[in-house]
């Protein structure tokens, strides 16, 4: 079976379309998170989303919608708290992560154990995505990318220096709240793809790889999106042929690209010819 032949399967088409959409939003949002040194914020929000999913399953509501609501409220709440009582960013991550997980564990214990649905959210189930889910993911991804495209200069400036951005007349607080809502929606939208436990890899890996050689913010963002899409598409295809979990294959592909980039970069550095300045050559010829 060739790569083109697997595209004939409906589930593969849906997986690839939603995978590409999710890769684009994760890397776009992730670039700002990584540069703000909030890499683990995505991880924290995914654990809050886990609590939200548990609420949905416990109350017999559609779990993705309860995850959206719970994650957005928690993200806004912790941002407000961080602003007003100056909690360090790593502590806010710890609070979000543990409280989200705690809600999930309590509700699981009350409902008598893991359901299959919750398990698929933990580890991702991209091959089981329905047409309706695909449409929702694509629609939300387009909306998120459009808002980032409109705000990206302001977000870039705030990321560069919040104080200077504020002095320039930018409403930093409002921009930060909008960004945090976008990040929360991105995490919940992406959970279907790589699951709660691996989502932060999709947010962080393409960006730290792109930052290594991107010249300019826009170029870095484009490289990052390219790497994320390459990781997702290769990961899905590899998982199909090797019969392994797609989420793990996607993340491991991302790790492989990152490691290859570092190795290539170091090799290029070590074989780069040393520039010998003219005075040195002149001295050598006199010896």
């Amino acid at each position: 079976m060739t790569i083109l032949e697997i595209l004939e399967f409906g589930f593969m088409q849906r997986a690839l379309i939603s995978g590409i959409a999710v890769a684009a939003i994760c890397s776009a949002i992730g670039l700002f998170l990584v540069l703000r040194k909030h890499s683990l914020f995505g991880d924290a929000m995914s654990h809050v989303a886990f609590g939200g999913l548990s609420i949905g399953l416990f109350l017999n509501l559609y779990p993705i919608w309860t995850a959206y609501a719970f994650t957005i409220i928690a993200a806004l709440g912790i941002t407000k708290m961080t602003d007003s009582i100056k909690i360090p960013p790593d502590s806010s991550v710890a609070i979000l992560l543990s409280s989200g997980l705690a809600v999930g564990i309590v509700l699981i214990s009350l409902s008598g154990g893991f359901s299959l649905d919750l398990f698929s959210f933990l580890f991702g189930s991209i091959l089981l995505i329905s047409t309706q889910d695909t449409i929702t993911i694509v629609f939300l991804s387009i909306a998120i990318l459009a808002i980032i495209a409109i705000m990206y200069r302001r977000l870039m400036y705030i990321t560069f220096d919040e104080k200077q951005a504020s002095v320039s007349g930018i409403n930093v607080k409002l921009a930060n709240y909008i960004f945090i809502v976008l990040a929360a929606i991105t995490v919940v939208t992406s959970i279907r793809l790589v699951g709660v436990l691996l989502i932060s890899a999709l947010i962080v890996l393409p960006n730290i790889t792109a930052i290594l050689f991107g010249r300019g913010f826009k170029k870095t963002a484009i490289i990052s999106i390219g790497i994320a899409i390459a990781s997702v598409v290769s990961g899905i295809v590899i998982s199909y042929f090797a019969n392994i979990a797609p989420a793990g294959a996607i993340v491991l592909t991302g790790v492989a690209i990152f490691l290859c980039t570092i190795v290539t970069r170091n090799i290029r550095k070590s074989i780069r010819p040393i520039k010998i300045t003219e005075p040195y050559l002149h001295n050598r010829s006199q010896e």
Partner: protein
Amino acid sequence: MLNITSASPIVEIDHLSYWYDSSFLTLDNISFRMEQGDLLGIIGPNGAGKTTLFSCILGILTDYRGTVKLFGKEILKNRKALLSEVGYVPQHASIEQSFPANIEEIISFGLLGSIEKYSRSYAKDQVLKAMQIVGLTDKKNKRFNELSGGQQQRVLIAKAMVHNPRLLILDEPTSGIDQETQDRFYELIRKLNAEEKISIILSSHDLDAVSKLANKVACINRKMHFHGDAKDFFGDENMLKTYYESAMQTHLRLHQFNTKSNSQQLPST
């Protein structure tokens, strides 16, 4: 749109006092005016309140006592409109070095917020003009961390002046930069003031540089010790003696405050 008349003083500060953490008096009853075209050097030791003063002028701090006016209007009532006429260069240390934006992108930040709407070609022209003034046209595709300390400061100056401000505020712009780069930097400041007609406030520890650059000097150390012509300040030996004495007192005062704060935070044993 705010109506700013050229006859109004650029900066007008009246009886300004500020308490850091609601307990530590950082600025005590400061008053002064700055006129169009002035290059005002603000000198004072570490902890004298220079950055606090700038934060009040820029409307970052709002819980002060007294009034702060820019171009004749109160900053807290017209912050956005007034700041569109101001360029600000913070202390060197507050900039994230690994940021992947190139120089052109960073300079264009200065147009955001200050100007409501602008075309891409206008932005490009303004950025190019700013790069030419600071002499960085050949570095436009470099990343910020690939430049030397002096070049980075020139990028921040270009960013601060890309929207054609009437006032430029520079907070210790040469800290951590070698002497040769400092000299070139001060030459740029002189050029901006004389040729581009930008009024400038510059805070610095470097009395020598301020004496050569500024036409007006404000010496603050929590209180205003002197405000007037630079030649009057630097020509008076007693002024300089008082400056160094009060610098030593500030050092002691800060040490006592920090010791007190630390002992309050530590649990008693």
